[in-house]
């Protein structure tokens, strides 16, 4: 769709340059004249926002690296020094740590947008797969970045994640040793994570270039999921989408700035402000919010290898998604069933995220109370029975002890306590995990075969400008 170039060098210098390095032509054809569907909505502004977020992370990261000390004795203090003593260090550090969250917020919206409008379907499979590669690299980068401040969550996060690999039969333990560079998370680990944390964003940058290249071959998909058929369906990227993107970015930066200036630590975990201690695990280890759904999937499976496979599988299915969805209709606007499946999927991902932040044994739903019956000898010598109940098992235990103290331990026989029906966080996570995989592996393949799609418009122009005559005139 890129079509023949419309670049006209404006000056003698530009003509001279164009014959030697046609970089202005490339920029002009890709970002100014590029014919873009006329119906893109604000969900389509997140690609630009993501490019912006990547640049922000790279620039602030390079600055942080000028002051950061990558050693277990110096790391924690150096980050504190950046926040307190280095001129504007607080600003740069806050932008970088909040930036990671904003980056993920944007990428999740961007991915769900692609899912809803069927942007992964032919001819955009490679575009989608490159996106999933970027997402994987982002997770690796963010994970290693989170280790660098060397707080308690840094240390134990690194320990837990590298231990995931030890679940692999036979080669698991050697791989873990190789990743850590020792028997435990230590200086060697911190040093290599710093080196890789510096490298990966540039690899992301490289894949982003491929991603945009793969986008510019078939051109943008759009909310209708209808192919561009004539110039009437498109507008030039500039000024239409440069302005729309800029406006969306400004709104995004407002949110970004609100966090940076008013709540820079609200997205992190307070335990990471305690220096790393290999002898004490924090009461609960939680990853950053953007990884919580995967953490919930990991914990949903009560088997080490199974949990690890499910977690990696949850990203693995995204790679084969283009071949799982059998429907010919791209946009879920015209798919009455898939659309609700999608809405539920978003809800399930949010709920998984919630589960990932809770203790696995916590009850989400409970019908009734814990009950314990007992027998005791009264002052008169007769045998009597009694019962106590409580909302939680800890509370029941406390009451039982109180009862024992009141009546006298020698005079009382406690029966086994009876637990009420409960749904725990693990069980909820299991149900949600089932839907997560079911959505990709069953729902999308089957729905495409049985669903009766709504009427898809013939062209974008027709749908956008209610009558075709107007479309003709404006073209």
């Amino acid at each position: 769709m890129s079509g023949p170039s419309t670049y006209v060098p404006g000056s003698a210098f530009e003509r001279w340059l164009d014959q030697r390095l046609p970089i202005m032509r490339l920029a002009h054809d890709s970002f100014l004249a590029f014919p873009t569907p006329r119906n893109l909505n604000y969900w389509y502004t997140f690609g630009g926002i993501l490019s912006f977020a990547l640049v922000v992370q790279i620039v602030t990261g390079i600055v942080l690296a000028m002051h950061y000390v990558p050693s277990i004795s110096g790391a924690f203090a150096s980050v504190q020094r950046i926040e307190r003593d280095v001129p504007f260090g607080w600003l740069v550090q806050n932008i970088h740590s909040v930036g990671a969250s904003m980056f993920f917020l944007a990428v999740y919206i961007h991915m769900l947008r692609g899912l809803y409008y069927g942007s992964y379907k032919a001819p955009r499979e490679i575009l989608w797969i490159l996106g999933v590669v970027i997402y994987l690299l982002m997770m690796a980068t963010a994970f290693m970045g989170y280790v660098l401040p060397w707080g308690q969550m840094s240390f134990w996060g690194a320990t837990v994640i590298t231990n995931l690999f030890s679940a692999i039969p036979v080669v698991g333990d050697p791989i873990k040793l190789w990743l850590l560079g020792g028997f435990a998370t230590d200086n060697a680990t911190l040093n290599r994570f710093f080196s890789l944390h510096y490298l990966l964003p540039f690899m992301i940058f490289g894949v982003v270039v491929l991603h945009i290249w793969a986008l510019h071959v078939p051109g943008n998909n759009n909310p209708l999921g209808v192919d561009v058929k004539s110039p009437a369906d498109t507008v030039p990227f500039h000024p239409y989408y440069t302005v729309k993107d800029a406006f969306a970015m400004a709104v995004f930066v407002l949110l970004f700035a609100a966090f940076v200036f008013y709540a820079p630590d609200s997205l992190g975990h307070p335990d990471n402000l305690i220096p790393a201690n290999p002898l004490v695990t924090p009461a609960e280890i939680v990853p950053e919010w953007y990884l919580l759904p995967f953490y919930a999937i990991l914990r949903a499976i009560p088997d080490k290898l199974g949990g690890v496979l499910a977690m990696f599988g949850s990203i693995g299915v995204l790679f084969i998604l283009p071949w799982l969805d059998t429907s010919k209709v791209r946009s879920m606007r015209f798919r009455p069933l898939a659309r609700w499946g999608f809405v539920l999927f978003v809800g399930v991902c949010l709920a998984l995220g919630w589960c990932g932040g809770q203790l696995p044994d916590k009850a989400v739903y409970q019908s009734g109370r814990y009950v314990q019956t007992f027998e005791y000898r009264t002052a008169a010598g007769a045998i009597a029975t009694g019962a106590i109940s409580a909302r939680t098992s800890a509370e029941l235990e406390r009451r039982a002890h109180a009862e024992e103290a009141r009546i006298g331990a020698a005079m009382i026989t406690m029966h086994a306590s009876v637990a009420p029906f409960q749904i725990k966080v693990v069980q909820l996570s299991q149900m949600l995990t089932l839907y997560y995989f079911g959505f990709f592996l069953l729902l999308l393949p089957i729905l495409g075969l049985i669903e009766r799609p709504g009427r898809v418009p013939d062209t974008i122009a027709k749908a956008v400008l209610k009558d075709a005559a107007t479309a003709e005139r404006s073209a």
Partner: protein
Amino acid sequence: MTESAANTHAEGIGSAAEPTRRDFIFIATSATAAVGVAAVAWPLIDQMNPAADTLALASTEIGLDAIELGQESTVLWRGKPVFIRHRTPEEIALAKRDDSLSASMRDPALDADRIRQANGDAGKEEWLVLQASCTHLGCVPTFAAGDYGGWFCPCHGSHYDTAGRIRRGPAPLNLLLAPYVFLSDTVIKIG
């Protein structure tokens, strides 16, 4: 490359019946290059493995006097925590009672195996020396928090008994023994 040269070349490759000397040179060169790449890649990969000083098995000597009955001390060995637990008679009794269930445990072991010294000698019942990393994903479990009188791992909910055997939760194995020997009645050496 001119068209005719390209054609000749294509024929040379295409005639499968008669491999030419050039085919042989191509294959031999590629094979040599592949070996060369592998030879360079290996050092670049292997450098990430534990260095010689890390591997040099550090050993630690610990006096047991300071650890009172019912208490445990956590020491670092090879950068990882090790529990030295001074077990009470109740803990020992609990562990021995559950020996009868050991066959049905995930990682069957008798209490006597759990306290064995690195040189194969029997240990002492009141001293349990275990690597403190949960065999699930490596957190440090806490004592007296689980359902089996022993350790509980807060990370994903693994319960260990008073011999450090896994009884419930995602961990696949018992807490690993730390290789230790008694140097005297009150001093042990780990590693």
